[in-house]
């Protein structure tokens, strides 16, 4: 219990540190709000283009702005959870602080999660801002009738994307990817997710092979379920994803099951690989660049 408490205290301290740093650049904070605002604005204008066109958003209702705002929200979460662990581990390595963290009683993971707070502070509130700007300025409407279920989906999305992020981060030490380019993150984030996550368009508009490729990322299931639940007029029963057509369960239930399976696989795997990577680095003398 004492150990858990000290890990928790350290995480709080990391978050304080990152907040002090983040908020010490006031201009940065204003730009941050404006950036989220203009991102939402761009998609509002795009929604004007699509207005009246026969684009099939079914079963996700008819409000493209809401559709996009939810896409942006998942994008922000994924950007942090999946994309951030690798550069944060790299930051600890290049900054030479890994040795100092190793000399502390903290677990191997706490420092990495701690330095990730910078992105958490930067990206998570964007979800709220995007929902807010969308609703106040651009006509997005939300159905929060299933808030509990939406929260479960959000939690599973957080865990599964963080698991993949951990796998990516572990490659820094395990496979010695010491530069900016990292194949695991590149394949997931820049190829599969960029093409098939469906941030800006429904997966159904893609060629079938790409729809199948999209079946391997958590974003597909999170977005499918969240859009059905939150966009007014969303249909809870019609099956559109390749796996939904194969397995005869209600779509949202299937989305939750698959997200849970992905979480259960990705997080422990990422955890295990990260420990392996640290142990390998301790053997090879590559924990920090300081040798």
């Amino acid at each position, binding site marked *: 219990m004492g150990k858990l408490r*000290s890990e928790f*205290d*350290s995480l*709080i*301290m990391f978050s*304080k*540190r990152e907040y*002090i*740093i983040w908020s*010490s650049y006031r201009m940065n904070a204003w730009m941050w709000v404006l950036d989220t605002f203009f991102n939402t604005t761009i998609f509002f204008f795009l929604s004007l283009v699509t207005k009246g066109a026969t684009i099939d958003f079914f079963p996700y209702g008819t409000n493209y702005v809401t559709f996009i705002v939810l896409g942006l929200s998942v994008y922000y979460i994924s950007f942090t959870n999946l994309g951030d662990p690798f550069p944060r581990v790299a930051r600890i390595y290049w*900054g*030479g*602080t890994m*040795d*100092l*963290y*190793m*000399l*502390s*009683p*903290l677990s191997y993971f706490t*420092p990495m999660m701690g330095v990730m707070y910078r992105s958490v502070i930067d990206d998570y509130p964007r979800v709220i801002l995007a929902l807010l700007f969308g609703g106040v300025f651009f006509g997005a409407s939300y159905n929060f009738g299933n808030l509990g279920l939406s929260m479960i989906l959000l939690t599973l999305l957080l865990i599964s994307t963080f698991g993949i992020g951990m796998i990516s981060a572990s490659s820094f030490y395990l496979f010695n990817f010491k530069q900016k380019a990292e194949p695991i993150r590149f394949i997931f984030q820049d190829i599969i997710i960029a093409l098939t996550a469906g941030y800006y368009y429904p997966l159904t508009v893609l060629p079938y092979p790409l729809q199948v490729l999209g079946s391997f990322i958590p974003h597909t299931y999170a977005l499918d379920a969240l859009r059905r639940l939150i966009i007014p007029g969303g249909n809870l029963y019609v099956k559109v994803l390749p796996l939904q057509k194969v397995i005869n369960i209600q779509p949202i239930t299937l989305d939750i099951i698959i997200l849970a399976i992905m979480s259960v696989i990705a997080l422990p795997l990422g955890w295990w690989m990260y420990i392996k990577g640290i142990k390998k680095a*301790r*053997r*090879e*003398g590559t*924990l*920090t660049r*300081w*040798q």
Partner: protein
Amino acid sequence: MAIENIIELENIVKTYKIKEGFRKFKPFNAIDGVSLNIEKGEIFGLLGTNGAGKTTLIKIMAGLLEADKGSGKVLGYDIYENHKKIRSNVSLVAPTADVGTDNNLTVKQNLEFWAVVYNLPKEKREERIDYLLTFLGLKEYENFWPMSISAGMRQKLAIARSLLVQNPILFLDEPTVKLDAKGAESIRKFIKKINVEFNTTIILTTHYIFEAEELCSRVAIMNKGKIRSCDTINNLRNNLEKYDSFTIKCETLKAKTIERLKLEENIIECNFKNNELKIITDKLEKTIDLTTRALRKENIQIESINTTEYSLEDIFIKVTTEEEKI
């Protein structure tokens, strides 16, 4: 009273793989059969040129690097089985003070951050930080950004961080490198103070010989991954007594002349620096005669000849060059 060894290493070997081309690696023996005992409460110096293996050895002792072969105990913990225990009972200051120092936080905020990371009990944090700031002369800078204080002060901040938790062993890797003379002197003063005040065993690496001479009760001279000599400075001097040394002051000297002198049978070491030719020999009179003749032959005016006492620098040069001669 029996001497208590806080660190015991036996025949430690560490080999790195150095990249030599595409998918080609060659082995490099960073540590090559090192055996070492360090006593509780001493300031122990690891002396050596760049690449001698000092940092690698420190990392092995601190539990940050796994040795390939050999055995060892630090604070009674096995270096292979209990490396986590070792790590949480030692402190370390990296050669660059900026490692672990966040320039976006004030001096005090930096210490507050690490106090939590190092799990210093909440009720002791404020008091300990305040004590260390005063102890190291940082109190008046506590609200300064690290970038706005001197390099010496930043090094003190790094030392303060390492002292937050009172661990029995403190590793200082080149603690005065990059500091000016005044800053370095101040750090050396505090190293002695820490050793006395907290009874901390300090292991420091340096390539400044005078620093080791000033601070350390014992030194190990490292070269090419091996410990060439390990003893008190006095004992190292005594071991050299079979040799003598002398200096000849003269204006200039050709490299060729020095090389020729080095080949002489009775000359152990010979170097020319700051208009002084320094020679270590096992036959003093014969070598003085031989050297002066050689210099006069080349019309070099000799200003003075002095026999000298051995400094740690002489010992260091002898120990590291003897190996090369072999």
